[in-house]
C-alpha cells in the first residue's frame, strides 16, 4: 500500500489525544444541581489513579473516525481488493535514452542502476523495460521476466542513447497505459537525468493513476557534488552540468560571400553568479577556417551574433561547418553543418499555354495583362519573370523554373491540357482563363465597349456596376480571407464551369467562380483564375488585393515542394513525391520502392541531410532539440511531486482513458539511432500491449481495478461520516452535550 499524501499519516499521532482525554480528563466528579442535601450521604471523591477508561464506545468511535479521516486525506492506494492484494507485482522500468543521457556517465549510471534492480528480482519475476525519449519503445515486453530484461539491456548498452528529447509526460502516459492493461499491480521505476526541460506543460500529465507506485531514480550524477557558488542555487544542492548549444544559418546574396548568424544558448539552472560560458566559434569549409568569434553566454541565455565570410569556397552548393573550438560535455550540439542559402527571387515563367498544335496560343493576350502580372510578380523582388522558351516547337517553361503563370483560353481544351501537363511535370501553374472567342456577330462579355475599368462596357446585366467578391474560402492556405476585396469589382469574369473535384476558392456575389484549385496529382499545384486581367473585365489588376493575391499564390506555390530550413531530431518532415533522402554520411535512406510512396521522413540524428528530386538537391539541417541541450535538472520538489503522482484522483486520472492504440501509434522503434522512414511502419508497442492484455495471470483482478483505485473514497468517506454521526449521537446521549448551543 502506498499513499498519495503520506504526510497526512502524521495525523494518526493525534489518536492519542482522545485516549488521553478519556483517560485523564474530567478528574473532578461531575457537578449537578440538586434541591437539597438533606437526604444525601457523601462518599469519598473518586481518585483519578483508580479511574479506568470511560465511555469506551465513544472513545472507539472517536479513534476510528480520526483514523478514517487521516487515511482519507493520506489517500491510500491499495492495489487490489481481496487475496490478490499481496500478489506479485509487475516491475516496469523506464530508461531515459534521450540525447542528454549522452553526458558523461549518465547512461552508464542508469544502466548500472537498472541492472541492480533487475538482479535484485527473482529471475522469473514479471518485469519489462521501456526506453523513452520523445517516444517510448518497449525493449522487453511487460509479460517478460527479469532475466529477459537483463539480456535486453546488453543490446541497449551497445547502442547508447539516441538524439531524441525526453518527454516525461509521454512516458508517464505510456506507463499508465501499460498499467491499464497489466493484470498485476504495476510498480514503475524511471531512470533519468530529470531534465527540467522534459517536464510537460501541465504537471497533471505526470500523473499515472493506474500505477501502484512510481520511483524516479536520478542519474544526472551531481548528487554528491556540492553546489558551487552562492546559496541561491538549486534547492537540493545539486550542481547542473554546464553546456552550450550552437545553432547557425548562412545566407548569401551574391553567391560570393556569406552572412552567418550564430546562436549560442547557455544551459540553464546554474547558480546565480556563475561565470558565463565562454566559447570560441570557428567557421570552416573543407578544413579551412574562414572566420572565428569569441562569445560568453550567461546561464539560460541565448546570444545571437553575425559573422561575415567575404569569400566562400568556389564549390557548388557550399556548406559551412560552424562549431565550438573546444567541445563541451555534449559535443553533438557544439557543431552544425549548414548550407549557404542564396537569397534570390523566385523565377516565374509567364506566357500562353501551348495549344494542341504546340503553338503558343491565340496570341490575344492583353499586353496590359502581362504588364499587370509582371509588375505584381516582381513587387518587392519577390520573383523574376521569365518568358516561355521554345522546345520541340512548343512554348514550354524553362528548365529550373518551378512556377508559371499561363494564359489559357477557356474554350481551348488543348491549352488547358497543356497547362495540366506542365503541372504534372512538377511546376506550379496559375492559369489565367481568357474568355471564349465569340462567333462573328455575337456579342460576348469580352467585347469592347465603353465602361468598365478601362472604358469597357461590361456584360453585367447592363448595370455597369459589376459585382464584388462573394464567398471566399478562408480555410485555404492561400489565406484569401486576409486580403481586402472591398473595392474589387468584376464586370465580366470569364465564364467557367468547375469540373468535378475542383475546389472553388473564391466566387462573385452572384456565385460565378473566380478562383479554383484543380487537383492534378503530384505535388505541384494548379490554380484557375477566371479573369483575363486585362483591366476591362474587372478592377482586380488595379487593386492592392491583386498584389496580395499574387504574393499569396507564390507563397503557396513555394510551399508545395519546399523543405523547411531546419527541423529537430524526431520531427516528421513532409516529403515531395519521388525524392531520395541522403543522411549526413551521404547514404540513401529510402529503398527504391519507398522513394515513390514515402510522404514523411523522420530524421533521428542531427546533421545535414540532402533531399534529391527532379528539381535538384536541397539541404535539410537537422538539429537536436534545443530543450535537450539544457541540462538544468528539476528541483527536488518537482521530482518528489512527480514520483507521488500514482493512483491519485487528480486530473491526471483522465489520462488513463487514453487508448493504448493511440499510445502505440505514438511509439516507433528507435532502439537504433538511425534514421528511419515513418510511413506505415507498425508499432512494436502495439504488440507489447496486446501481449500484456492477453496475459492470464491475475485476470480476475483486472475487473476490481477500477473500484480499487478509489476505494478510499468509496469506503473511507462514508465510513468517516458514519463514525462522526455515531460519535455525535453517542456523545449527546452519554455526555449531556448540548451541541445546539442551548
Amino acid at each position, binding site marked *: 500500500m502506498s499513499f498519495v499524501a503520506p504526510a497526512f499519516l502524521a495525523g494518526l499521532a493525534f489518536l492519542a489525544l482522545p485516549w488521553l482525554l478519556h483517560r485523564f480528563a474530567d478528574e*473532578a*466528579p*461531575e*457537578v*449537578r*444541581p*440538586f*434541591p*437539597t*442535601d*438533606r*437526604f*444525601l*450521604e*457523601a*462518599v*469519598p*471523591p*473518586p481518585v483519578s489513579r483508580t479511574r479506568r477508561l*470511560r465511555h469506551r464506545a465513544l472513545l472507539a468511535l472517536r479513534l476510528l473516525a480520526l483514523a478514517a479521516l487521516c487515511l482519507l486525506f493520506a489517500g491510500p492506494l491499495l492495489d487490489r481488493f481481496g487475496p490478490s492484494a499481496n500478489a506479485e507485482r509487475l516491475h516496469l522500468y523506464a530508461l531515459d535514452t534521450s540525447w542528454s543521457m549522452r553526458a558523461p556517465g549518465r547512461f552508464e549510471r542508469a544502466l548500472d542502476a537498472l541492472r541492480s534492480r533487475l538482479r535484485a528480482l527473482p529471475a522469473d519475476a514479471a518485469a519489462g523495460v521501456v526506453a523513452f525519449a520523445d517516444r517510448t519503445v518497449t525493449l522487453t515486453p511487460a509479460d517478460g521476466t527479469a532475466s529477459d530484461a537483463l539480456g535486453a539491456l546488453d543490446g541497449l548498452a551497445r547502442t547508447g542513447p539516441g538524439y531524441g528529447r525526453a518527454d516525461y509526460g509521454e512516458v508517464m502516459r505510456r506507463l499508465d497505459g501499460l498499467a491499464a492493461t497489466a493484470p498485476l499491480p504495476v510498480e514503475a521505476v524511471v531512470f533519468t537525468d530529470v531534465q527540467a526541460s522534459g517536464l510537460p506543460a501541465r504537471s497533471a500529465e505526470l500523473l499515472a493513476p493506474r500505477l501502484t507506485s512510481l520511483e524516479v531514480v536520478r542519474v544526472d550524477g551531481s548528487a554528491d557534488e556540492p553546489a558551487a557558488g552562492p546559496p541561491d542555487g538549486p534547492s537540493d544542492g545539486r550542481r547542473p552540468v554546464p553546456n552550450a548549444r550552437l545553432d547557425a544559418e548562412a545566407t548569401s546574396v551574391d553567391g560570393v560571400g556569406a552572412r552567418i548568424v550564430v546562436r549560442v544558448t547557455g544551459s540553464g539552472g546554474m547558480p546565480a553568479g556563475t561565470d558565463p560560458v565562454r566559447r570560441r566559434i570557428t567557421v570552416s569549409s573543407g578544413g579551412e577556417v574562414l572566420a572565428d568569434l569569441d562569445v560568453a553566454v550567461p546561464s539560460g541565455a541565448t546570444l545571437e551574433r553575425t559573422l561575415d565570410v567575404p569569400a566562400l569556397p568556389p564549390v557548388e552548393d557550399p556548406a559551412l561547418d560552424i562549431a565550438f573550438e573546444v567541445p563541451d560535455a555534449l559535443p553533438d550540439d557544439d557543431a552544425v553543418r549548414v548550407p549557404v542559402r542564396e537569397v534570390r527571387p523566385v523565377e516565374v515563367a509567364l506566357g500562353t499555354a501551348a495549344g494542341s498544335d504546340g503553338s503558343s496560343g491565340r496570341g490575344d493576350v492583353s499586353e496590359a495583362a502581362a504588364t499587370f502580372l509582371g509588375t505584381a510578380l516582381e513587387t518587392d523582388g519577390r520573383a523574376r519573370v521569365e518568358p516561355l522558351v521554345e522546345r520541340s516547337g512548343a512554348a514550354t517553361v524553362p528548365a529550373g523554373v518551378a512556377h508559371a503563370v499561363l494564359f489559357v483560353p477557356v474554350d481551348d481544351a488543348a491549352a488547358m491540357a497543356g497547362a495540366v501537363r506542365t503541372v504534372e511535370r512538377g511546376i506550379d501553374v496559375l492559369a489565367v482563363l481568357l474568355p471564349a472567342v465569340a462567333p462573328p456577330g455575337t456579342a460576348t462579355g469580352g467585347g469592347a465597349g465603353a465602361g468598365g475599368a478601362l472604358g469597357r462596357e461590361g456584360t453585367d446585366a447592363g448595370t455597369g456596376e459589376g459585382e464584388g467578391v462573394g464567398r471566399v474560402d478562408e480555410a485555404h492556405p492561400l489565406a484569401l480571407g486576409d486580403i481586402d476585396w472591398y473595392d474589387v469589382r468584376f464586370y465580366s469574369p470569364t465564364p467557367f464551369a468547375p469540373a468535378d473535384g475542383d475546389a472553388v476558392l473564391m466566387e462573385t456575389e452572384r456565385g460565378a467562380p473566380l478562383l479554383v484549385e484543380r487537383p492534378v496529382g503530384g505535388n505541384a499545384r494548379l490554380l484557375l483564375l477566371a479573369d483575363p486581367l486585362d483591366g476591362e473585365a474587372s478592377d482586380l489588376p488595379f487593386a492592392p488585393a491583386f498584389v496580395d493575391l499574387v504574393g499569396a499564390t507564390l507563397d503557396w506555390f513555394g510551399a508545395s515542394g519546399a523543405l523547411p530550413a531546419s527541423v529537430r531530431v524526431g520531427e516528421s518532415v513532409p516529403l515531395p513525391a519521388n525524392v531520395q533522402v541522403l543522411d549526413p554520411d551521404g547514404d540513401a535512406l529510402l529503398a527504391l520502392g519507398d522513394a515513390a510512396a514515402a510522404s514523411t521522413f523522420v530524421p533521428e540524428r542531427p546533421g545535414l541531410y540532402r533531399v534529391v528530386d527532379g528539381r535538384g538537391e536541397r539541404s535539410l539541417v537537422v538539429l537536436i532539440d534545443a530543450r535537450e541541450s539544457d541540462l538544468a535538472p528539476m528541483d527536488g520538489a518537482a521530482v518528489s511531486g512527480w514520483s507521488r503522482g500514482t493512483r491519485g484522483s487528480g486530473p491526471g486520472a483522465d489520462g488513463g482513458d487514453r487508448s493504448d492504440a493511440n499510445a502505440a501509434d505514438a511509439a516507433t522503434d528507435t532502439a537504433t539511432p538511425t534514421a528511419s522512414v515513418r510511413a506505415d511502419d507498425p508499432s512494436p508497442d502495439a504488440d507489447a500491449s496486446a501481449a500484456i492484455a492477453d496475459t492470464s495471470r491475475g485476470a480476475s483482478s483486472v475487473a476490481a481495478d477500477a473500484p480499487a483505485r478509489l476505494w478510499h473514497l468509496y469506503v473511507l468517506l462514508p465510513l468517516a461520516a458514519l463514525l462522526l454521526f455515531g460519535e455525535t449521537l453517542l456523545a449527546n446521549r*452519554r455526555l449531556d452535550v448540548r451541541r445546539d448551543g442551548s
Partner: protein
Amino acid sequence: MTPTPTRTPAGSATRANAAADAVRLLRPEVLARLGSLELVAKTVVDGVLTGLHRSPHFGHSQEFAEYRAYGDGDDLRFVDWNVYARTGRAYVKRFHGDTSMQLTLLVDASASMDFGDPVSKLDVARWLAASLAWLARRQRDALSVATFDETLREFQPPSTRPDALPRALGLLQRTVPGAGTDLVAALASLRATVRRRGLVALVSDLYADPDDVLAGLQAFAHAGHDVAVFRVLDPGEIEPRLARTAALRDLEKGEDVVVDPAFLERGYRERFRAHHEALDTACRRVGATLVTVRTDEPLDAALQAWLRVRERGGR
C-alpha cells in the same frame, strides 16, 4: 349530587369533551409555552371546572345559620317574607359564610424551587397559585398572596377589589428563586398578618423539618383557618439517577456532596419517602391534606384531586 348534563347535539358534545380533555391534559411543558400567568391560570381552571362538572366553593357556605330581627340598613333582599307573613315581624336570614372567604396563598420562592427540567418547581408553584387565585376571584373571595424563602419576601394583603387578581398574578410573575428556606419564620410572619379566617394554601417543596412544618401550620389551624398544603416536586428529586459518581450541589447552600449512584437508588429514596410520610402525618394533624404536585404531570389533575377531597369533606 349528579351533575345535570347540558343538552347539546351529540357531535358537539363529543367534540367539547374531547377539547376539554385536551385542555385538561395539558402537559407542564405546554403550559410553560403559554407565557402569561393569567392565561395559564385560566386554562388550568377551565380544565378543572370541566372535570368537576360544577363550580367548586371552597370555604364559602350557603347553609342557614339563624334569623335576626330586621334593623335599619339591612338589605331588604334578605328579609324572610314568609316569616313576616305569618308573624308580622321582619326577620333577616343569616347564613354561614355570609361574608366572603379569604384565600391566602403562601408560595415558596427559595432556591430549591429552582429545580426541574423542562419546567422548574417554581414555575409549577406559580401556576398552581395563579390557578387557585383565579378560582378564588371567580367566587369573589378575598385574595392574599405571599412569597417567602428565608423570610417573608413579598406580601399582598387580602383584598376583594377587582384588581386583586391582576396584582397577585403580577407578584407571582416577578417572583424569582431566592435564597434558603425558613418555613417556620415565614409562617410565623404570615400568621401575624393574616387575622381573618379563611383558607391558607401553602405551595412549597417542604424541605423542612416535619415538626417545624407542623408547628407553623398549627398556628393557622388553631386560628380557625383551613390549611391546604401543596408539595411541588420534580421527578429528578423523587427518584434521582446518576450514571456515575457525581457531586450534587445544594441549590440553597451551594455545597457539593459527592454521591454514589447506588446510594441514590436505595438510601436516598428511603430517606425521602420517610420525610414525605412525616410531612403527611404532620399535615393530617392540623386537618390539612398534603397534595403532591409533580412537575411532569398535568397541573389540573392535581388540582382536581384536591377539590374532590374537599368536596368529600376533607380539608
